[in-house]
């Protein structure tokens, strides 16, 4: 009898602990953990402020946590700036962590829509989650603002009247800079890419854009995630003698490739484009390997425009550090979109909010002016071509060009 009692107590304790663990977004971001259903409410200026519940569904823990955490920091920064109130509408965030698990995401989504009854959802950190939720969102008619996931599908065949994006599409990331590279680095390009669904979308987009810009793709080598030795690829590249090499490899493989590209003597001969970001340059070898490589970015903290200067100041004041890149800006811009929608929509009914989202309004983003394209539901923004330059043991940017109004085609290009 006594053993059973203990067992039951333990079981109940476990359930409580796991429930607590799940519903609050844990992580290092400022006060978001435990803020499950209590958003910060500031002093309202309008009479009888109406509370608008906005569901935040992001990946806040696990390997992809940086995405959700970055988004949250940007979003909270913007909302706090406005005291969580726009006009007579008070914003209350209901934050849920999907841990980048589609099953959990579905569950949390249902909770946000059915029991919290949120008026809109913002977030969606990865394309896996996006595809898992897309059909539900469309049939439930829940207005959703994507602040990260780049899957092209929701701008093309899987478009929904209720899904809009303020971050980027894989097409844009992939095709970014193609015209500049053709005009300035060379027409014959060799591509090495890490195999993944996102990688495939990005490479296909780049190939499409590069060839349309007048270039020739010599070869695309697909590399398995976890590849340790690129010796053979180096040989192939050397034989093909391209004008440019583009390494679409991310994280571990990306760094290895860049280092080995230098080790095997190719760096001095052929310009290298990568997808590495400056926050990865944490050791002298990586700084060395990335020095002189090219990249096309949607945002860099050193961008010289009013909105960005303000954004970086505000960020520093609140978080005591500098923004690292896209995630924080996407969160911040999501806040701007929310503000615009709440101030301009006649009501909180999905159709009314959608009509504002489709109106092609411009927001003053730290990345430059951004417009959500009414056709693709995807942001149209600037693309900054830059080159890494070694500065002591750090990596600096050298801006080369700005490509304006970069968007994506209205329909999927024929393969």
């Amino acid at each position, binding site marked *: 009898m006594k053993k059973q009692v203990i067992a039951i107590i333990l079981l109940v304790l476990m359930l409580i602990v796991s429930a607590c663990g799940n519903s609050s977004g844990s992580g290092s971001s400022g006060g978001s953990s435990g803020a499950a259903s209590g958003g910060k409410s500031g002093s309202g200026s309008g009479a009888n402020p109406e509370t608008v519940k906005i569901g935040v569904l992001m990946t806040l823990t696990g390997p992809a946590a940086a995405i959700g955490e970055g988004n949250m920091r940007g979003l909270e920064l913007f909302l706090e700036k406005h005291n969580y109130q726009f006009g007579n509408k008070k914003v209350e965030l209901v934050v849920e962590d999907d841990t980048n698990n589609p099953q959990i995401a579905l569950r949390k989504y249902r909770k946000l829509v059915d029991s919290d009854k949120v008026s809109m959802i913002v977030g969606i950190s990865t394309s896996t989650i996006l595809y898992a939720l897309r059909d539900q969102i469309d049939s439930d008619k829940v207005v959703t603002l994507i602040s990260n996931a780049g899957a092209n599908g929701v701008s093309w065949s899987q478009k929904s009247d209720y899904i809009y994006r303020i971050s980027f599409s894989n097409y844009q990331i992939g095709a970014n800079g193609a015209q500049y590279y053709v005009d300035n680095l060379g027409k014959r390009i060799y591509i090495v890419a890490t195999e993944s669904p996102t990688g495939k979308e990005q490479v296909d987009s780049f190939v499409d854009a590069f060839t349309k810009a007048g270039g020739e793709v010599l070869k695309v080598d697909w590399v398995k995630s976890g590849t340790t*030795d690129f*010796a053979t690829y180096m040989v192939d590249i*050397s034989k093909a003698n391209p004008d440019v090499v583009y390494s679409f490899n991310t994280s571990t493989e990306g760094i290895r490739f860049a280092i080995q590209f230098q080790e095997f003597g190719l760096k001095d001969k052929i310009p290298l484009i990568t997808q590495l970001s400056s926050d990865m340059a944490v050791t002298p070898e990586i700084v060395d390997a990335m020095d002189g490589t090219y990249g096309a970015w949607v945002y860099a903290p050193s961008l010289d425009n009013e909105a960005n200067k303000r954004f970086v100041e505000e960020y520093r004041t609140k978080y005591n550090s500098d923004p690292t890149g896209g995630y924080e800006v996407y969160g911040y811009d999501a806040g701007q979109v929310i503000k615009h929608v709440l101030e301009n929509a006649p009501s909180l009914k999905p159709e009314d909010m959608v009509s504002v989202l489709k109106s092609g309004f411009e927001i003053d983003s730290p990345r430059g002016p951004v417009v959500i394209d009414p056709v693709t539901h995807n942001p149209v923004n600037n693309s900054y071509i830059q080159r890494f330059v070694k500065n002591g043991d750090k990596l600096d940017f050298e801006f080369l060009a700005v490509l304006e109004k970069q968007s994506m085609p209205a329909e999927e290009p024929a393969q």
Partner: protein
Amino acid sequence: MEISTLMLQILAGLSYGMLLFMIACGMTIIYGLMHVMNMAHGSFFALGAYVTYSMVHAKLGFWPSLLIAAAVVALLGVVIERLLLNNMYGKMNEQVLITFGILYVVQDLIKWIWGTDILTIGVPKILNFSIAMGDIMFPAYRLFVIAFGILVAVALWYMEAKTQTGAIIRAGVDDREMLGALGVNVKLVFACVFMFGAALAAIGGAMAGPILGLYNGMDMEILTLSLVIVVIGGLGTWKGTFVSALIVGMIETFGQVYFPNFSMAIVFVFMVIVLIVKPSGLFGKGVTA
């Protein structure tokens, strides 16, 4: 495929295989003598790399850092062996559980101490050059890894065949009780062997640093490969490990290029075939009851 490309790939495969050998042989020796399946071996590998990184960062130079890392990990090995494994000899399930537990704990410790960024160790200065081979410059460091691996293999062979320590170990593998009955301090031998295996894994990790980089999860990856290699080569025989490590290294390297989707699968298929044809592994002596 031309000769020079083939040569390059073989060299790349060999250098990877040598790294694998250094880790796997520690595991197999430990198993052969002590019948301990040490799942935490991957942790020794990773810690070897990370400690070397920290020492290098403190401006200590590659070689001193490598030695310090080996010493630190060897010490850790002794502590684990004396405190945790001491009471578990003969109890395979408990050993696996506890060493697996250590693997997870160390994995998190590494995240805590060194963070989640991908880190690198620079190639030691004397070896930081490339040799022209055909169209390509092949990094000299990798050739060094091959040479070092051969050196370790030769040293092991010499120790096993020609020294008394080797004789004791061989005897212990054959019949542990008899060894004790002969008056050898078996506990001391065990502790030393475990320490040696751990140190070797750490050295492997340190040497792998400049090639593979340091990243979370490297312990798991290397553990999986080591287990496969040890099983293919034969539990308890380092000769078998040498051969199978080189084979697996080659399969992985060639596979990554020609069958990127299947390279891991090919390794496992190879393992299954070997086990079907010769269940005790390529050089194994047969399972003791």
